[in-house]
């Protein structure tokens, strides 16, 4: 009886995770060179920016705010930091400028959402349009190649003891975000605002402050990802961030099917990113055609999420 309960509950909470593990096992057994330390480090490197963006979006979702400008915010840092570096700005200053830009974007979004009262979906759609313009204006539309200092490139391409620097950034970001969301009063309040705004307000939570903070965190994580992305590509590309919106949402959504179904959690998002990263990498190593990969990926997501959806009612927004 008790066993039955535990099992049923676990099916709900871990089914997507189980599919992830199964997939990992299947790829390990069937795909040559999948289970090599080199390849696993590749995967870590490939998903690191996505995970960081996803972790930021998780804050937004926890407070029920969606940041549709996140891809362009990634792009902003990915253009601004290289531009400054090429112009000779010292690295620490350029990195700080990137963070400052993220703060500015986050505060702008937060202003329109919490002070003016525009729903985040519209406000960030509009601010995304603004950022798009700014990103391309900054470079006149062209990509920035060359002239980037090695220390900067090291952030995106270097290794420490054979482990990519990016992986450390990713793990650091996940650990930090997890800690803040699960173990601090701040995170608790962000979840409260998203869980029931009226109840939070009547419990003395300063709702506006935490909604605003969730949007700012979202932008800050995005600029970190953007800075690293440009370092990894060795080039600042004004449109390189765009795919991070849909992919970032996918990681959060997949994450919302695990652990605490219906709730965005940092670990869930991390597993969501792993999920996508492992599919992409495994299918690539199998030598599957890109387009068929895309079909297979969609199908795997549907199957994985179907299991949990049958037993739990998921409300994503």
């Amino acid at each position: 009886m008790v066993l039955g309960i535990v099992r049923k509950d676990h099916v709900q909470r871990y089914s997507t995770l189980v599919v992830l593990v199964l997939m990992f096992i299947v790829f390990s057994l069937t795909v040559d060179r999948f289970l090599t330390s080199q390849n696993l480090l590749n995967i870590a490197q490939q998903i690191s920016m996505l995970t960081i963006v996803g972790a930021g979006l998780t804050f937004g979702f926890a407070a029920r705010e969606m940041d549709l400008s996140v891809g362009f915010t990634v792009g902003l840092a990915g253009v601004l930091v290289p531009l400054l570096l090429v112009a000779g700005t010292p690295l620490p200053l350029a990195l700080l400028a990137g963070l400052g830009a993220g703060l500015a974007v986050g505060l702008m979004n937060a202003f329109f959402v919490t002070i003016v009262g525009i729903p985040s979906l519209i406000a960030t759609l509009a601010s995304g349009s603004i950022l798009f313009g700014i990103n391309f204006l900054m470079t006149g539309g062209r990509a920035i190649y060359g002239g980037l200092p090695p220390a900067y490139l090291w952030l995106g391409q270097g290794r420490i003891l054979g482990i990519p620097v990016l992986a450390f950034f990713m793990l650091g970001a996940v650990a930090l975000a997890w800690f803040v969301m699960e173990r601090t009063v701040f995170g608790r309040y962000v979840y409260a605002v998203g869980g029931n705004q009226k109840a939070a307000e009547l419990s003395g939570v300063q709702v506006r402050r935490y909604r605003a903070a969730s949007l700012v965190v979202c932008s800050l994580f995005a600029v970190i990802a953007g800075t690293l992305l440009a370092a990894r590509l060795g080039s600042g590309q004004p449109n390189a961030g765009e795919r991070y919106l849909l992919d970032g949402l996918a990681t959060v959504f997949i994450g919302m099917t695990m652990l605490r179904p219906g709730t965005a959690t940092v670990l869930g998002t991390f597993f969501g990113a792993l999920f996508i990263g492992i599919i992409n990498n495994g299918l690539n190593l199998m030598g599957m055609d890109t387009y068929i990969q895309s079909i297979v990926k969609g199908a795997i997501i549907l199957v994985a999420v179907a299991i949990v959806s049958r037993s739990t009612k998921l409300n994503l927004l």
Partner: protein
Amino acid sequence: MDVHLADIVMQFPGTRALDGVSVTFRNNEVHGLIGENGAGKSTLVNILGGSLQPSQGQVMIGDKAVRLSSPHDALLQGIAHVSQEGSLVPGLNGAENILLGHEPKLAGIVIRKGALQRHAAELVSQWFPKVSIDLNRPVAELPMADRKVIEIVRALRGSPRIVILDEPTATLPAREKEQLWQIIRSLPPQGVGVVLISHFLSEIKALSDRITVLRDGRHICSEPAEALSEDQLVELMLRRTGGAQLRGAAASTTQADAPLVLDVRDWHVGAVHVPHFSLRAGEIVGLIGLTGAGHFGFARSLHNPAGARCQTLTIAGKPTELGPPRKMQDAGIALVPDHRMEYALIGEWTLRENLSMVHPNHGTIAGGILSPRREETEARRVMKLMNVKAHSSRQLLRELSGGNKQKISIGKWLYGASDRYRVMIFIEPTEGVDIGAKAEIYAEMRRLAGQGVGIIIASSDLLEIESVAHRVIPFVRQGPGPEIHAADFSESTFITAISGAAA
């Protein structure tokens, strides 16, 4: 024709909500359904109404077994359901809600707006001749009472065989309540059976032809109403004796010279004006009134004064500026609001998280870092204090029954420290709460008052006010009327006071 539920078992993950229940509902009777919070009443009627499918057992209409796989199926069988949580489409107006699914149409597809409006108005005046509701306004803008009326009219629109009313009066003020009683009585003679769930035993006694008692998902008995006294009902429900004792000892008296914990002058909120209001430590003050009299609004605004202004506000002797809830809390005011799922609790959170929502800082290590261990200890202390029935502090809140949810809603103000607040405001504190839990909540209020907290209780349950308050302020037309002292308490004085001046 009768509807018979045979050997119904309902198994939820972790809970057996119904365990082999068999009942017959007739279309010429009012059938009262009672039981503690969590006894399985709503689950049973959800099965009858097609919203839930039983794990085992059958629904029979006459001699025929039927499958009710959706509310639509149930409606086709003549079973209409007014659910416990209000359910109207907020964007549609009253008329559109009443006739949702039954719209007058042209050529089978086009809605005839005029006919719809007229038809809905006719239905309302047919069932509630004395109630006037603006059927042209989106229901989101209507008061709760009007919404309930609309839901009930919607259930009655197709002349069903059985109407399920799941706690219809929990949110209904006196006048509408009275009308609803009349309607309920008038239905069986017209061949419409009523299944009525309520925690007001007097109401059940007064209206029902037969009464079914559920306890822990089991069928205890189904008897003619005359055969059972109120005390016997309590006993059957709770497996405990002494209904009278549950209603509680009369309120103890307070010290007239106790210090003032709250004093406000010239309080304006919306159209409500309160020239002077004060509250002493240890005192329980009841606020009563008809719908729209402003007593709820006033009580809420003391904790959340958005849109309020006043000449002076003094809390525990300290003059205080108005501010958001957080500021009022810091000054010593707490609020246990009505509509707890909307205004107080988070269903998807654990009990522990809900309890620590107001004061998460209590369990922190440093700089806002939570300590799950300390949080757990404190949550358990409060749950024990409040006698919350749950299998652990990590259970999800939404899985709790109404009474236990309400205890969490109160308990979160006691988390961290019980003496943090000098003024506690309770609005409809026993909305949808069973009689056993009611007694416990009253006891808790008295205990708090005993510790020197000043308590304001605003309620439409006059009996409740009578049994816990030291003095009562009736509200009439957006303001307080002459105060009523304990010596003069009675239902009739209350009713005269709240309606008298209005007449």
